[in-house]
């Protein structure tokens, strides 16, 4: 019995030792010449997996650009996939596996839908996270390792309300699904509309993926809205708006969506549901502003298109705002490592805000990793100007940024810009 127990104890200690040796902790430096890992901790395998390549595109372009400039402090960096799934029950063990299995994990892209469950686990290992999660929990984030790389969902909701106001609508209906994603924007949209003096004629929260919404459509039509502000999943939208056409004599009502709706997985089913002409004429969505032509965007696109088999159909992501956001934040993180002269996230995370922010104050403006690395090695202070301008974090590590209103061109299967909302313009409209 004693021998058995001793044997089990030895095996356990060996297992712990192996795990510890292989595990990633933000406190340790990468060994000389060892490759760093940018861990893509997102949903690869579920329905959201179709959007995963948005992140892959950003990561592949960033690592391509970084490695072409000689890497970070003599280390190459590569992207590695870690499937977080969509369910926190799966994501938590997946996070543990990533932390124990990845070697020299420098930072993660994600987590996204499962951020509130997994961010504390990753943060406990002092790994920097670059996330586009809309979870309102992070609106007042106090985790020093968590960075939200796009404006928060509540700000996106304000932008949607402001665009409706700017479009001249005085009476709008709100249509959102009863799911956690949409629920984070409902209150900001409603508050934004109230501040702007726009009347909400109906506020419907519908159960998703029902076989019909005719009763709900009739309620909405009875309120006589000039436009509908909406976020639902694609199937719900297709069912709802096709029935709206049926019950409204074939006439569509202007539809304004959120960032979640200006993606092809929403727009294409909408085209099939209400027709290309109606989508082109009546649908717009507000989203994070896309990148502007310039050296940063050129660098991103160059390495995106050189990504080979890593990114299927890279052309699709040339101007994708979330891909460029992941690219920019990855490059900024790499520059933070160079500035800190350390690959340990615990040491470099504080430098992320030092290599970004507003230009001026004697800082050299850089647009690529190569430029930034050269300036830092020459002893200069830098500010990285990303693909859509400076990266400005608020006190909660949430990025401030501009929004754009996009319309979908079904013939060319791409979004076109109808207008831009700057952060200053939005703050002023909201009285902030």
């Amino acid at each position: 019995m004693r021998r058995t127990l001793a044997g089990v104890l030895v095996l356990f200690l060996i297992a712990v030792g192996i795990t510890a040796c292989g595990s990633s902790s933000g406190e340790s430096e990468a060994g000389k010449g060892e490759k760093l890992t940018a861990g893509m901790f997102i949903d690869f395998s579920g329905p959201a997996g179709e959007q995963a390549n948005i992140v892959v595109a950003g990561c592949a372009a960033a690592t391509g650009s970084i490695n072409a400039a000689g890497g970070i402090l003599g280390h190459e960096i590569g992207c590695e996939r870690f499937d977080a799934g969509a369910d926190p029950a799966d994501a938590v063990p997946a996070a543990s596996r990533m932390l124990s299995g990845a070697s020299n994990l420098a930072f993660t892209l994600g987590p996204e839908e499962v951020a509130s469950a997994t961010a504390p686990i990753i943060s406990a290992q002092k790994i920097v996270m670059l996330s586009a999660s809309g979870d309102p929990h992070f609106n007042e984030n106090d985790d020093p390792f968590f960075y939200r790389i796009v404006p928060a969902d509540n700000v996106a909701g304000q932008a949607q309300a402001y665009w409706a106001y700017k479009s001249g609508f005085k009476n709008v209906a709100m249509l959102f699904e009863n799911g956690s994603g949409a629920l984070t924007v409902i209150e900001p949209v409603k508050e934004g509309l109230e501040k702007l003096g726009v009347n909400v004629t109906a506020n419907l929260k519908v159960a998703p993926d029902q076989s019909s919404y005719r009763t709900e459509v009739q309620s909405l039509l009875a309120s006589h809205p000039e436009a509908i502000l909406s976020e639902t999943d694609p199937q719900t939208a297709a069912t709802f708006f096709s029935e709206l056409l049926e019950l409204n004599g074939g006439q569509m009502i202007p539809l304004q969506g959120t960032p979640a709706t200006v993606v092809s997985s929403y727009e294409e089913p909408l085209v099939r549901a209400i027709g290309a002409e109606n989508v082109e004429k009546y649908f717009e969505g507000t989203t994070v502003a896309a990148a502007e032509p310039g050296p940063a965007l050129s660098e991103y696109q160059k390495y995106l298109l050189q990504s080979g088999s890593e990114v299927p159909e890279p052309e699709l992501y040339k101007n994708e705002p979330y891909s460029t956001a992941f690219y920019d934040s990855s490059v900024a993180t790499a520059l933070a490592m160079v500035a800190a002269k350390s690959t340990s996230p615990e040491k470099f995370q504080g430098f992320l805000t030092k290599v970004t922010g507003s230009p001026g104050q004697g800082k050299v403006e850089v647009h690529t990793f190569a430029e930034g690395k050269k300036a830092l090695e020459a002893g200069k202070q830098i500010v990285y100007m990303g693909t859509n301008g400076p990266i400005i974090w608020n006190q909660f590590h949430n990025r401030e940024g501009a929004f754009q209103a996009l319309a979908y061109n079904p013939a060319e299967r791409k979004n076109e810009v109808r207008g831009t909302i700057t952060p200053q313009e939005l703050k002023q409209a909201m009285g902030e």
Partner: protein
Amino acid sequence: MTELIETIGFGLVASAVVGLGAVGFTLQFSVSHVFNFAYGAVMTAAAYFAYLANVTFGLDIWIALAAGALFGAALTMAIEAGIFRPFLARRADTFTLLIASIGVGLVVVSVINAVAGFGAHSYEVNPQVAVHVWKFLWTPRQMATLGLAIVAMLALHVTLRYTRFGKAMRAVADDSDLAGNSGVNARRVTLLAWGISGLLCGMAGVILALSTVSFNTNVGSSLLLVAIAAAVVGGIGEPYGAMLGAVAVGLASEFFAWLVSPGLKDVAAFVLLVVILITRPNGLRSGEKMRTEAQSL
């Protein structure tokens, strides 16, 4: 008043879809006493088969519906013969059968995902505008759906009531061993009953996919629990009860959305289920009536 009648009209259309699903589900249960959770996956498979017929082969949607229904029948019969019959022959308990059905459902959906992908699909049909039929507001396609459901229920009623096969099915539902001893080929009757159930299941899947306009591999599972609720409300194992249950559930859902909250629409079926089971534990029409009729053979 107009809103009330329109809501009833919407509820009747919803009942038609739920009814096809619920009657098929309860038919399976009546002859085999299997709570088949793969039923939703068969609906999904039928919807995708109809998609193949309509979009890939360019067939009219109603022909594609028939193809989907026949595919549903064939798949259901294959599942009965290949999966459940061996379990039942070994006298597997209810829990084992339930787990097996969940497993079969997962496999079917996984295969569809692997072949067709996770993305959404839509049939190629022309958009329609709703017209007033008295005070109801229906599109021609919805009227056709109602008509199809009524014809299917009538056909089932005639089969159960006036054909030898229908009487044999009712006998097997009551007591398959006794029916076998009375000269009924219970195995063949069960297989054919599952075939009819699969036909209804396939029809429900295709009509549901047509109603939602855009569908993915979750389409069957979205209706499954509501169909089960309707079947249980009506009295599990009782096809006429399932028809009644479907009408109750369809109307309750639309009234819930109208009067209470659209966000709680899918809760309506289960609220009704709880209320009915508290007041009538065996459902609106219990299996007693069927057993009484079987005894009259």
